[in-house]
Each structure stands twice: as C-alpha cells, then as structure tokens.
C-alpha cells in the first residue's frame, strides 16, 4: 500500500479534473483514480441529478457516496477502518464535508495529504478533491 504522500501529483490533478462536476462527464473515467487509493468518497451534491451512479469500472476498490452529511459514512465505515493501520481515502466533496472528515481523521492519526479546490462554487458549496492518508506511526501500514 502506498500513502497519499507517495501519490503522484499529476495523477491527483488528473483525477480531480475528471471527477463529474460537469453534467456530461463520463463517469467511467473515474477508473483513472490514482493507484493506492483504497476508497473514494463522492459528494452527490456535486452530482448531476438523474445520472446513474458510476459503480462500474472503478479502479478504487470501494466507492462511498454522501449528500454532504458524513455521519453514516464515518460511523458505519470509516471509524472502524481508521482505528486500524493503513487505508488511503480519496474524495471529492464539499469543503464542509471535508472539514468534518479532516478533523475526524486527525483523531486517528491521519492527515489530508493532498487537496485541490475545484470550481465552480454552486450555492455556496465549494467542491474540493482530497486524499486522507495515515500519518501517525500507530496507523501507518
């Protein structure tokens, strides 16, 4: 497993650019997610209404979706995972959701190792692409 710190910046930027902020985006292009990411979080508030969820063809083993609120994702899935070593999480979410995830990740020795603010801001909602990876020795894989 690689950490977010090891991730190639060009790959991250490429991945960020193709995440479906545009209505006509080809979602299968998410397969270009950088290697080493164990799961992706997609914030459906940035998701065009009526488009199918792009579960097929993803390079990331798991895709999680939220509607801004991270409660269930964190409580059901991330909290148990983050208590163990390893696990690199990528995402494209609103900055509000990232703020919450970043604080929670900090509790478990994890950091946002890469972030990129994306356009456009819609209804006051700033989309951000990011990577959260283990940082503290107790959770490094």
């Amino acid at each position, binding site marked *: 497993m690689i950490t977010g710190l090891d991730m190639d910046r060009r790959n991250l930027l490429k991945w960020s650019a193709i995440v479906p902020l545009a209505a006509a985006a080809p979602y299968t292009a998410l397969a270009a997610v950088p290697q080493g990411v164990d799961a992706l979080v997609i914030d459906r*508030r940035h998701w065009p209404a009526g488009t199918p969820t792009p579960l097929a063809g993803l390079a990331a083993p798991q895709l999680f979706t939220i*509607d*801004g*609120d*991270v*409660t269930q994702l*964190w*409580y059901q899935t991330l*909290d148990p995972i983050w208590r163990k070593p390893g696990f690199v999480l990528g995402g494209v979410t*609103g*900055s*509000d*959701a*990232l*703020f*919450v995830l970043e*604080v*929670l990740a*900090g*509790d478990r020795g994890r*950091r946002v190792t890469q972030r990129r603010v994306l356009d456009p801001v819609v*209804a*006051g*909602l*700033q989309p951000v692409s990011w990577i959260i990876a283990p940082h*503290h*020795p*107790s959770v490094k894989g």
Partner: protein
Amino acid sequence: MTTPKGISAQVFADGLAEMRSAVGADWVFTSQEDLHTYRDFYSVLWDEPDERVASAAVAPASVEEVQAVVRAANARGIPVYPISTGRNLGYGGAAPVYSGSVVIDLKRMNRIIDVDEGNASCLVEPGVSYFDMYRHLQETGSKLWLDVPDPGWGSMVGNALDSGGGYTAAPYRGHFEAQCGIEAVLGDGELFRTGMGALPGSETWQQYKMGIGPSLDGLFRQSSLGVVTKMGFWLFPQPEAYLSASIDLQRFEDVEPLVDLFNELEYGNIFNGMPSITSPVLTRGNPMMFQPVPEPEVMNRMVEETGLPAWRATAGFYGPEKVIRAQWEYMRDRFSAQFQNVTFKENQFVKLPLSAEDMQKVSKARFGVPSLEIFSVGSNGFGDFNPSDGHIWFSAIIPRTGKGLVEANRVMRRECARLGIPLFMFSPAVTCWTRSFVLFAAVPVYKDGRNKELRDNVQEIIRICAQHGWGEYRCPPAFQDAVMDSYSFNNNILRRVNERIKDALDPNGIISAGRYGVWPKHLRGGRG
C-alpha cells in the same frame, strides 16, 4: 520549536523529554504540522500575533501517564492545557487559552469503564465521544440513552465540563447537571475524586453526587484546577414513546402568560422533553433567525396579514404512551382555559426504540442519537453560511419570562444591527439547561482580517448585555476575561475567590492559565 513565555528552551526541552519518557515519543507532538491540529479553527484571532497556540502537545493514555505529565510540567512551571477531544468549536476548540501552553490531549483515554443498566449511569474517560458511547450502548443491547449535543462528535466529559447541553429530557439535557462523580489530577499530580468516589469501596459514586462536606464537582467546570480523568453520568432509561406537540397563540400579549404557564407545566413534570418557544411570524423565511420583536400592534397586524401565529410553544414528552397522551391532554385543557384562539397540533408521535424508517424522519438529537448533519445544514438552505468557515457563539442567560424573551430579543437585534454584527443564527430562548433561557447568536468569523472589528463589537455586546443583567454562560477564550469581568458583584468577588482557590490548588499556575478569566498569580497582573 516555540517555548512558553518565561520558560527557557532548555527547561522546556527537559520537560518534554520527561513527558516523552512517560507517554512514549510517538505521543509528544512539536512539529508545526502536528500543532496545526490544535489550533482553534474558528478563532477570532486566526493568524494574528495574539492567536492562542500550543507550543507542544502530549497524549497520555492512562491516569498514571497524566500524573507523570502534570508532575513534569509542575516541576518546571510549564503551562499545560488539557482537552478531552478538542471539539469545542465556537468556544475555543483545541487551542489553549494561554498561548504557549502544552496541550494535554486526552483522546487516547477512551475507555468506557462502566455502564450500569440498573442505576442508569456510566463512568467514562475523557476521550470517550458521544459516538463511542452510542456505539457501545447499541452493540451491548443497552436499554439506556445518552443525551447528545449537536454536533455529537465531542467528548462526553469535555462537553459536560464546558456546560454543554443536549435535547432529550430535563434531567439529562444539561450535561454538567447530569454528571455524577469526577476524578481529576491536580496541579501537583495528586489524584482527587469527588462525591462518593472519595470513599474507598463505595459502590455509589454514580448514585449520590455530594458525598460529605462542600460539594466540589463545580471546581472542575470551565476550570483551571485539574485534569479530569474520569467522570460519571446519569443516563436516560429508554422511554416507551415520544410525543412532540405544539400550541399556537395569536397575539403579542400572549407571550408572558404563555411562558409562565409553560414553566409551571415543565417544572411540575407535566412534560419532560425540551421545550421551545418561538414565533412563526417572526421566523418565517428562516427558522434559524428570530427577527426583532416589533411593537404589539405591529406584530398583531403581521399575524393577521400572514395568517401565521404570533407564538408557538412546543413541548416534548417521553414516557409510556398512555401517560404522555394524558399529559398532553392536560396541557391542552390548561391552555384552552387560559387563552383565546389557541390551537394545538401533534407534530410527531413515535414508539421507541426508533424503527429504521423513523430514524430517517426524526431530529436525531431528541432521541440521543449523535450526528454530524449540522455541518451540512448551511449548504441545505438555512441561510447563506457555511459552518466550516467558522463562527463563534454568543450565549447569554436571560430571564425565563415572556418579558425577558422580548426585551433580550429587541436589545440584541438592535445592538447587533447598530454594530454591524452579521448573525446567521439567532434564538432568544434555548432551553437545554434547567429553568433557564439562553439567548444564542451565531456570529461568523473570518480569516481575512475582519476579526479585529468583530472582537471589538462582541466586547461591546458583552458590556451591553451585562448592563441588562444578562451574562454569558460560555464563550470563546478571546472573551473570557471580559465575561468574567461582567460578573462584577462586590468588586468581582466571583473572580477573586476563584483566584484564591487557584492559588491554593495550583500554586505554580500550570493548569489552563486564564481559562474563564482565572489567571495564576504570576500572570494575573497582565492578564496573561
């Protein structure tokens, strides 16, 4: 590496070395990257020279390690600032009040030591979050609820020590009121227990608060006297059902008898859930913003023109269905007998435990279910704000009367408008705490240089409220001196007695210097 003011680099390094030997090198943090996580992300001093920042952080995992850390600090006069999980956003977060303090981060002390089903109580360490306890209760099949704040990601201990509040039944909503038993490490490293915890062999630590002699639990509320390492709480036996019901009244003049009757019914245990009193006509358009209360004839005309009630009182009932329906019927009878044009509405009735379907419909905090949903509220239509940009809370205790509600609303809205304080949430009568109204205002903070004016304006609001007899019960560190100053009876005897206690229990003044305006002797002259 920065060092605390007045502490040499060598002494500080020696102190950190002793702390490392106590907790392990991986759990002492000194890099800027690590210390960034201990900043107050909602600070009104963000990136300014006076921002309150930590010089280091240390994360002990046991009481013994806490004692070793405190002793290392006490021997050298190194200031320390304990946090449970540091989630006190809007009131200071994880950052110390006195810049340069070493944060004692207690998140690794996350053991749920005991949950007593029969006594409906628990004993926990400070790193136990509401989510941790909720998960524990769910996984063990407990029939107990905990009362949660919103958001619910903080520490049970930390939230209670800062007087946080929740949303279920009266004995549990005031989180410090629901505590029963405290263990704390004092400034010299000695271990102290309150109440029945002071009696070896006692099985009643979480049953009887007072023990013998003066009750000392309050010494640790918003305190600079110790590092709390255990705390007991009373939990809520899961009720059979919940009912939320509202009473609408149509005239401005109804507000005073409304509050009086509501108080009588709550204090007489006719309802036990969190009450709310609001004004549909004055919150139309944005339920989070209570508009200024106009003159009676204006408000009554607004009611006629909009068809919206002047006042809405909502009560919650927890208990057996037969009982709470009878209580609601009694309330209706009382209001019908006293008011004209009163209308009633049953908002929600659910049998408990919540079904998966009900869980999606309810306000989770009313059912002791922690949530982080509030962080996405700003993006979901309640006004034009994003909570992650930062805000502070202004939280003043006002009289629990109709007159008090109206006057506080008018003064606060008028003065905030005059000073140009932009509010994004305003509610004049929050009832998390027993027998009180708390006027809550959420004030956005900035990271672009506008905070100086904001600080000056908030200080002015503190002074104005104090002139009316309204004091804040909790506030961010930048305002704690001003608020403590406002409690000025008998030449600020409250602060002076706190200082005497501080000097006696923590003579080297190492713990939480300046917290809530109580400074150690060597920093008192310049107030830190």
